[in-house]
């Protein structure tokens, strides 16, 4: 069975600083996709970044980047220059045959 673990239930960061959210997963699949979703208080699920397992290069999207370590089954999210609008729940997700989500990390950006 595929599982996704986010070991940090809550985190906080000062505005303009950098924060890293951790995610590990367990699978026997070789081809899969990894995602980070953001859920602000509005409840909307918003895709932040995605990574294909066959790509060695880490994905980046503006202030968001990942550190994908396939052998270690690790997929952390780095948010640079944190902004108040980054305050949200962040979910790591794994997709092979179906989508599995981690339990989420509640991130608070402090002014």
């Amino acid at each position, binding site marked *: 069975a595929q599982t996704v673990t986010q070991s940090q239930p809550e985190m906080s960061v000062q505005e303009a600083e950098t924060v890293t959210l951790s995610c590990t997963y367990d699978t026997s699949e070789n081809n899969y*996709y990894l*995602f980070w*979703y953001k*859920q602000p208080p509005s*409840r*909307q*699920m*918003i*895709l932040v970044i*995605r990574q294909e397992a066959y790509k060695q290069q880490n994905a980046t999207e503006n202030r968001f980047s990942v550190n994908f370590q396939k052998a270690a089954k690790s997929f952390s999210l780095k948010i640079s220059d944190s902004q108040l609008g980054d305050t949200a*729940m962040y*979910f790591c997700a794994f*997709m092979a045959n*179906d*989508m*599995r*989500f981690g*339990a*989420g990390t509640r991130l608070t950006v402090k002014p």
Partner: protein
Amino acid sequence: DTAVSQTPKYLVTQMGNDKSIKCEQNLGHDTMYWYKQDSKKFLKIMFSYNNKELIINETVPNRFSPKSPDKAHLNLHINSLELGDSAVYFCASSQKVGLNKNEQFFGPGTRLTVL
């Protein structure tokens, strides 16, 4: 234009009632999903469905049933509602091919409260 829409956004009902939540996607995707997010924010897949295959999470009670009148719609019917059904239900869609394959686009969610 809204990519994935759900109605209603809020639903308050009595225990024992039967209710439906509607979902529509205008992205041309081939697969649609229903998720349940509980009060602790855990997201669990309930169903995934394309025109050929319905995959049911075995933990979902059979009081829940998806109905797909066409490729763009996947409605969720719930019979004999129970207090524990209170949650936020998300619809999502994705496609198996193309640039954004397997990326799931989510609806805004429906907050169901069972009294």
